[in-house]
């Protein structure tokens, strides 16, 4: 054999062996059929449409976090300007990204501007407010908005990941989705009933312990505001609360009540060390509740606070709603509890949400798809059966029509599939329904490449060339055509990958990989087999094509 040919053969065998290894020889070298199957199933991951499971797309309401930053800035400014003795009339939020400071004492105008630039120059720009004498507008910088958005997205994703992991679901995927719009994609393979996961993921889970102003709870907003003639004291807030029938005897448990609380919390969910559901409270036997403990720092603060506020009510505010408002009986250092009408499951889920930390912003569900496991099985079974049947028909026809050369083409096709699957497992890609479409297009183009070459070889034979010359000329002439068709398709696949999402991307990946494999098998491998065959053949013998 010609040495050139020998090296080509060695290279092909090497590629085949590596592909086989990637598909079934990894991660544990198989010693039984079951292990081969196991390895294969591990390498070729099926998408949710084939395997069954739940697919969620959520949108993080980043605007929440931005508005929150603005709110906090208003609170901080109120305090700091007083400390600095810079007089002003009012500070209020104009919209999510603007703050209006009214009537700053003109003699302190430059001091005010310097203060803003020095302290908050990275985040806020101060400019004179139109139509407000001595008024200023603070504008949240674009760069600050972007960095808040980034931080919010990252934190949301991490929080969701923690929550899902604690739910104990198998191989969940949480990733950013799309290029804009703050979307996160969550995939829960095998999960056929996502109701509980959806509740847990979507809970904001923000816990705050705040001082309750005396006098409440009130049965309506109007009643709460009446004693102070309709105006809340500074730093106070009116929030809804759960009705604890113990505090208002006779009221029906379903009515809502209102509390006036301090806006600034004593401790928040960030200060939690742990949270756990229990039902061993002697005061409330058989009832599920959530116990929490505070970190060292927060415990110190909390201890001081409770010591100085004995006899007052402490509001346990969960997601902006007062869950309960116990009276502080003595100094409390590091633990507390949340009571409510919990089942074991809901207490467990709340503890989980608190442990995982609050979401920095609320979320919206944009999309939810659940493929039941049996439907996934059906799609695979039907899809695979149909694909195998059609593949067999195509192969039989190739052998019938092109005889030995057809067998060569069949070998090239099988190799093409092998390389495609191996490459998919190497990239960790998942096989989805549109991915199967990509495979079908690949096989079609693989058959086409072979047919193109063979028809060309036949033409050359008809023109009276020798077998070897015909094979050479056939491959040479078909080569350009094959490259043109493949590159055109890869160009379009590139756009699909770049601009498409989810299934369209999957299609583009399988297609591109398949086409590259196809150029290798239909041209390089197929030609090498021909050359080997020709080298064994008698000079004047006919080519079986």
């Amino acid at each position: 054999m010609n040495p050139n040919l020998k090296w080509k053969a060695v290279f092909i065998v090497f590629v085949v062996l590596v592909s086989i290894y990637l598909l079934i020889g990894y991660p544990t070298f198989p010693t039984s059929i079951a292990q081969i199957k196991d390895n294969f199933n591990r390498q070729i991951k099926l998408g949710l449409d084939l395997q069954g499971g739940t697919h969620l797309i959520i949108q993080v309401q980043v605007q929440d976090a931005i508005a929150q930053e603005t709110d906090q800035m208003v609170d901080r400014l109120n305090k700091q300007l007083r400390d600095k003795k810079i007089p002003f009339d009012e500070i209020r939020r104009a919209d999510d990204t603007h703050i209006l400071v009214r009537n700053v004492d003109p003699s302190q105008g430059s001091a005010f501007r310097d203060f803003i630039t020095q302290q908050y120059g990275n985040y806020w720009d101060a400019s004179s407010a139109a139509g407000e004498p001595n008024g200023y507008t603070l504008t949240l910088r674009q760069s600050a908005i972007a960095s808040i958005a980034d931080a919010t997205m990252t934190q949301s994703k991490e929080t969701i990941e923690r929550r899902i992991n604690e739910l104990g679901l198998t191989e969940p995927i949480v990733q950013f989705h799309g290029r804009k719009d703050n979307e996160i994609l969550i995939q829960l393979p095998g999960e056929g009933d996502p109701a509980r996961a959806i509740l847990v993921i979507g809970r904001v889970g923000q816990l705050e312990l705040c001082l309750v102003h005396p006098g409440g709870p009130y049965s309506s907003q109007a009643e709460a505001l009446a004693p102070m003639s309709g105006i809340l004291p500074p730093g106070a807030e009116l929030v809804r609360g759960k009705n604890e029938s113990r505090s208002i005897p006779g009221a029906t448990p379903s009515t809502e009540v209102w509390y006036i609380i301090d806006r600034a919390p004593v401790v928040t969910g960030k200060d939690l060390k742990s949270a756990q559901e229990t039902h061993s409270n002697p005061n409330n036997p058989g009832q599920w509740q959530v116990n929490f403990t505070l970190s060292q720092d927060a415990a110190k603060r909390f201890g001081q606070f409770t010591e100085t506020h004995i006899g007052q009510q402490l509001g346990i505010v969960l997601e902006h709603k007062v869950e309960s408002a116990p009276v502080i009986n003595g100094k409390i250092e590091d633990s507390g509890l949340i009571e409510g009408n919990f089942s074991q499951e809901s207490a467990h889920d709340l503890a989980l949400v608190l442990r995982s930390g609050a979401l920095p912003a609320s979320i919206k569900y944009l999309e939810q798809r659940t493929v039941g496991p049996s439907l996934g099985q059906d799609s695979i079974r039907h899809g695979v059966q149909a694909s195998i049947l059609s593949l067999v028909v195509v192969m039989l026809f190739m052998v019938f029509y092109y005889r030995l050369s057809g067998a060569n083409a069949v070998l090239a096709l099988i190799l093409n599939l092998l390389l495609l699957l191996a490459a998919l497992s190497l990239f960790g890609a998942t096989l989805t329904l549109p991915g199967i479409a990509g495979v079908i297009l690949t096989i079609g183009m693989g058959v086409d490449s072979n047919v193109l070459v063979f028809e060309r070889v036949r033409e050359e034979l008809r023109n009276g060339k020798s077998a070897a010359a015909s094979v050479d000329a056939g491959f040479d002439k078909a080569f350009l055509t094959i490259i043109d068709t493949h590159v055109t398709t890869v160009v379009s696949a590139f756009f699909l990958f770049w601009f498409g999402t989810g299934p369209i991307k999957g299609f583009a990946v399988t297609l591109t990989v398949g086409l590259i494999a196809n150029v290798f098998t239909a041209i390089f491998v197929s030609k090498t087999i021909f050359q080997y065959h020709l080298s064994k053949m008698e000079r004047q013998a006919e080519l079986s094509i």
Partner: protein
Amino acid sequence: MAGYHPPGPSGAPGTIGKRLESKEGKRNRMIEFFKEPNIDWMGKAKYFYALSAILLLVGWFSIWQKGGLYYGIDFKGGTNVDVRFAKAPTVDELRKSLTVQGLGGAEIQAVSDSGLPGQASNEVLVFVEQKGSDDQAIDSSKARVLSALNAIYGVSDTGKADFNLAPLNSLAAVLNEKDPLNLGTSAGDRYTLLAKKLLDYRDKVASGLVTDLSELSRVDGSTPAVVSVVKDNFSVGPFAIRNTEIVGPKVGAELKWQAIWVTLFALAGMLVYIAFRFEWVFGAAAVLAVFHDVLITLGFFSLLHFEISLTVIAALLTLVGYSMNDTIVIFDRIRENRRLLRKEDFAVLVNKSINQTLSRTILTSGLTFLTVLVLFLMGGQVLRAFSFALVVGIVVGTYSSFGIAAPLVVFWHHWRDKSEAAGSGSQPARKPA
């Protein structure tokens, strides 16, 4: 043979005479369905254009008449619930119960497993349109569909998880906790394996719907204790939800535009590449032909009332690929023949190129057509619309390569020759591609 002998790179021109004798022998041994024909394709171009015009008109008239394409949930948003029943209720019963839940406008559609006629199934697809944009209540429609189904069968909520929806890990967790085989600490992953077998039985043998948990005693490795643990922790209903899709209206609208833009970008990319490899008019003709294929296929979707879903978009992209492939093979031959036969009239040259590649065109298209036809008939419900797009697309795509794309190039050439001849007459000789 049309009388041209392209010299191969390693061919020895001097020996042709001798080899011609053996040529006949070789030809007899080859199986050939299609000897190189001598068809005047360009002469028939007007019929092709008429045919395409009719197909486009009929299809798009249907789209216009039906007030647009029939979009699937991916694009229009809403709630889809796919239910399999042990014994299906009548559509009237279902409709009545849905109306009680305020879902009177829901679409109810029977689903069949195979494309072959006469196969009834116990599966129903309920579609509820998304009303308003209240994303918080995104799964309220699903809950109401479930209540409607429960009402039909008088099933009350037992508070137990539905076995037909149970994922592997929750079943395995229950078995591990209750330890019905008394394995103690030596259980290892045996309960996981057992859970897998139980679910395999559900998904493969019982088609996803176990109606009586006692059936599980048939599963290899299961004991009465195992069955009773499953019964204590899970319930089964007379129906199983096989698939739920809930898509917010905003997502749907965005996806539709994304699909359109992606397709246009892909076409533009192809146009540039072909213009670079051939001439710009080839690129334009190829892209127009492919665009024509997509439009006709969409027309067929409307005529036969198939839904446009994301997988159908993947199929349309596949068809774009196939059709482009076909066109390029012919263009490639035209390019090659132009170098060899400079004096030939362009239309004759194009005819010859199509005829020379006809055998390949028919073989490839025939084989791929066969593939997608099998997929259409046997691929099951999920692949139905997908393979339908390909069945139509491959026929149209093959036809458009010689029927639309090639004549477009010829028309352009004739038009340019004429306008050059009518011009100053001192145009520089044009450069062959």
